[in-house]
């Protein structure tokens, strides 16, 4: 059986952590993987720390990423890196706001999608598939700005102009 890949997305309530993991999970599911996604709602939405997890592979059992076994850790808020770092396995990939071209972003509300774009570089899925699920999860009037944000993140911080 193939290895299960573990992704953790973390940030603060209101930053769109759950939205990012929804898009991520749906894109991977659409690509044919078995996917499970886990999150905790409730009090966490009042501005506190939020994290959500996606696991994918041939067959996924537990929806929760085992402690210290995150392969890809995406942190949407710089203040939340420290508290989430222990979730990352040795040699895992960490993506923080410092790693993405945030300054070039037109609308700061799309920062979560920009960071999803940065994460998408690590998976072999076509851009159209990602954008399909970005659009499916957001209202039409913000599609354009989020598509641009995704592409910006996917291009990378120090990419050739």
């Amino acid at each position, binding site marked *: 059986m193939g290895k299960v890949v573990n992704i953790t997305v973390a940030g*603060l*309530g209101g930053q769109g952590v759950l939205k990012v993991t*929804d898009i991520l*999970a*749906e894109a991977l*599911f659409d690509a044919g993987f*078995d*996917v*499970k*996604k*886990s*999150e*905790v*709602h*409730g*009090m*966490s*939405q*009042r*501005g*506190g*720390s939020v*994290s959500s997890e996606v696991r994918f592979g041939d067959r*996924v*059992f*537990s*929806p*929760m990423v*085992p*402690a*210290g076994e995150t392969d890809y850790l995406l942190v949407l808020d710089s*203040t*939340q890196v*420290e*508290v*989430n770092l*222990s979730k990352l396995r040795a040699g895992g990939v960490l993506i923080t706001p410092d790693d993405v071209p945030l300054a070039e972003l037109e609308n700061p509300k799309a920062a979560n999608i920009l960071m999803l774009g940065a994460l998408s570089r690590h998976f072999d899925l076509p851009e159209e598939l990602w954008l399909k699920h970005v659009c499916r999860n957001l209202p039409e009037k913000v599609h354009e700005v989020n598509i641009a944000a995704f592409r910006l993140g996917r291009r990378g911080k120090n990419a050739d102009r």
Partner: protein
Amino acid sequence: MIEKELVSGNEAIARAALDSGLCLGVGYPGTPSSEILENVAALGGQAEWAPNEKVALEVGIGVAFARGRSIVTMKHVGLNVAADPLFTIAYSGTPGGLVIVSADDPGMASSQNEQDNRRYAIAAGVPMLEPSDSQEAYDFTIRAFELAERYRCPVLLRMTTRVCHSKGALIRRPNASPAPAIAYEKDVQSNVMIPAYARIAHRKLRAKLAELARFNEEGEFIHEDHGSSELGIIATGISYQHARDAAPEASVLKLGMTYPLPMERIRKFAAGVKRCVVLEEGDPILAEACLAAGVKVEGKAEMYRFGELSVGRVRRILAGDTTPEAAPPAGKPPQLCVGCPHRRTYEVLRDFGCIVAGDIGCYTLGVLPPFEAVDTCVCMGASITTGLGMRHALPEAEARRVVSVIGDSTFLHTGINGIVEMVYNRPKTGHVVIILDNSITAMTGMQENPATGRKLDHTPAPKVVIEDVVRAIGVDHVDICDPTLDREHFAGILKERLASNDLSVIIARRPCILAAVKAKAYQLGGK
């Protein structure tokens, strides 16, 4: 073509209810259960928020008396409120399928306790199904309706936070289980629980449970993974998923119906492995039942009664590791939103040095800095009544500082009784109740309630006017103010009322900042 969807356990239950010809879904919002009825409505089914869980269950019972299929949803503590009808409807049963969803919250992601509602199945004598993922949430819901009708008994569907909110693959079976036609049939011996009939009904119930235990032995709700004979694991709910990751080589017996138990199947499984470990979140109910039946199993160490299980904790349980666990790094705690209308109210209560009897909602967060203005929090509606108790017991100077705070939805849930108590058994120093009316059930994700003027699906509804209710019960003063807009006005009223021996209700009214935008959209006809 049958499409595979990625859905949460709650979304799966809603789909199953609709694919079973649901007549009515009814409940009270509570994390982690709230999305079930929201999804029923979004998919075109009939669903409503009741003022509380007891009302919800009773409405559901009525639907099932008319042979309709009804699903009643609530969080674990909601079943405490609904326990009164539960214990008696277990005796009489209903001709229509009545499924009660108890969404438990091990680890208390958003709850005041982590009670294990499997105990309710045993105490009331009601069969219990426990899904371990979204597909099972769907399949078990459909089967729950059928079992409820076949055995004429309500079925408890026990969910936990992780199963409710985790997403996984789902394949639906549209029209999987056609609902019987609505029809009323008079049957007083079954439906009227006077002692003479209830004595018969109790014996019938015990006979039904014996039959259900035999049915469970047949294995429809049992799944077995045949692995090594060195290690056997008996698991329920989410523990099964963790077990498969933690010990892929083990033999596993997964129980989907956890009351009444298939003890012979358990006995046979345990006898076939060298070591047999029971994995269950919460109380050691299954392990104790096995041991009481003389089946040789190992339970988990006491430290694993607390909190959720995880793959890591299951590995520790299997290894017999009871060394202290590393505390997860402390994140940023939740707080009242910037711009939350409760903030000003709490600032004044803090500055006045009030003893504040608190309640259940976002506003419980007033206990944290910078306010530290909540002194107690027990259960829904308890602010008014515990405040009254303190007023009765404390010496006058301190009694005068006691204030009860309660939200609009919580007031309608079980707060009204407290106002009746206050008027009837008036403390010598009077009392002050502040209704924190943000015009929405905010904590659980912006659900409507009887005072918002909108139904569950946000369409217009008749409105219960809170000030009219409290005036009608007979309090001395009812004031309506907005502490955010005019803090001094609110502070002035509060000071005057605290100094008097009168009964006072102050309604601090200002819409939740998150809900205000939505409310405007609903008015314009959007959803």
